[in-house]
């Protein structure tokens, strides 16, 4: 009887340990996915704003002969272009990187 109970407790320990490790693997996977998504979302939100003001200051400083209107339009177009490049990189990563993580999960 004591043997049985021992076996049961050992089996229970094994189960809980495997469950725990599985849970940890899930957590680390979730954490890495969260990091990637957070990085790209902050890139998409902040990159155009930074590009707009950086381009505005840089263009104003470098090409001083340009009119204020042209500087504004150039920096706006540059910000929108940077935004779309960041979005394209995110979609590429989601399309090709997302399938990779699911393959890892299957392994």
């Amino acid at each position, binding site marked *: 009887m004591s043997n049985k109970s021992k076996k049961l407790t050992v089996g229970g320990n094994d189960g809980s340990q495997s469950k725990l490790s599985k849970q940890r693997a899930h957590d680390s996977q979730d954490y890495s*996915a969260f990091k*990637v998504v957070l990085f790209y979302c902050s890139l998409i939100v902040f990159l155009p704003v930074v590009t707009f003001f950086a381009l505005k200051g840089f263009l104003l400083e470098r090409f001083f002969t340009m009119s204020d209107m042209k500087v*504004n339009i150039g920096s*706006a177009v540059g910000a*929108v272009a940077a935004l779309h490049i960041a979005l394209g990189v995110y*979609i590429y990563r989601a399309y090709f*990187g*997302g399938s990779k993580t*699911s393959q890892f*999960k299957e392994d």
Partner: protein
Amino acid sequence: MSSASNDNPIYGPFFGVMGAASAIIFSALGAAYGTAKSGTGIAAMSVMRPELIMKSIIPVVMAGIIAIYGLVVAVLIAGQLDLPANYTLYKGFIHLGAGLSVGFSGLAAGFAIGIVGDAGVRGTAQQPRLFVGMILILIFAEVLGLYGLIVAIYLYTK
């Protein structure tokens, strides 16, 4: 003096201010609808397929970009606002048109992204091949907002 006051009335900047405000207000309205509508789809889908979260965030990101279009135009218009003496009525009309064009285009694009994102994300959970189609439809919805931005910048240069 009288012609100057006719060209530069006291209410001239009102139109420019309304243009800047409507650019960001309507774009944010569309972006909020797109985020909320596709967010409910993501929440429903992630219960069964949490590994698809990276792919399913795309409609939310695209809805956020609509608001950035409005932000860019609003900042451009706000940079040109001035006292009535230096701001013609014509400029005010131009800025109102620019703000309305990007605002309503963004509203329409946000509605489209929300509806397509909701249905597309739910469908992608059951048939992953749908993902490419969903991205294409989302890009065509996003381009509607981009057209509004192009027209607004073109108006702004007048």
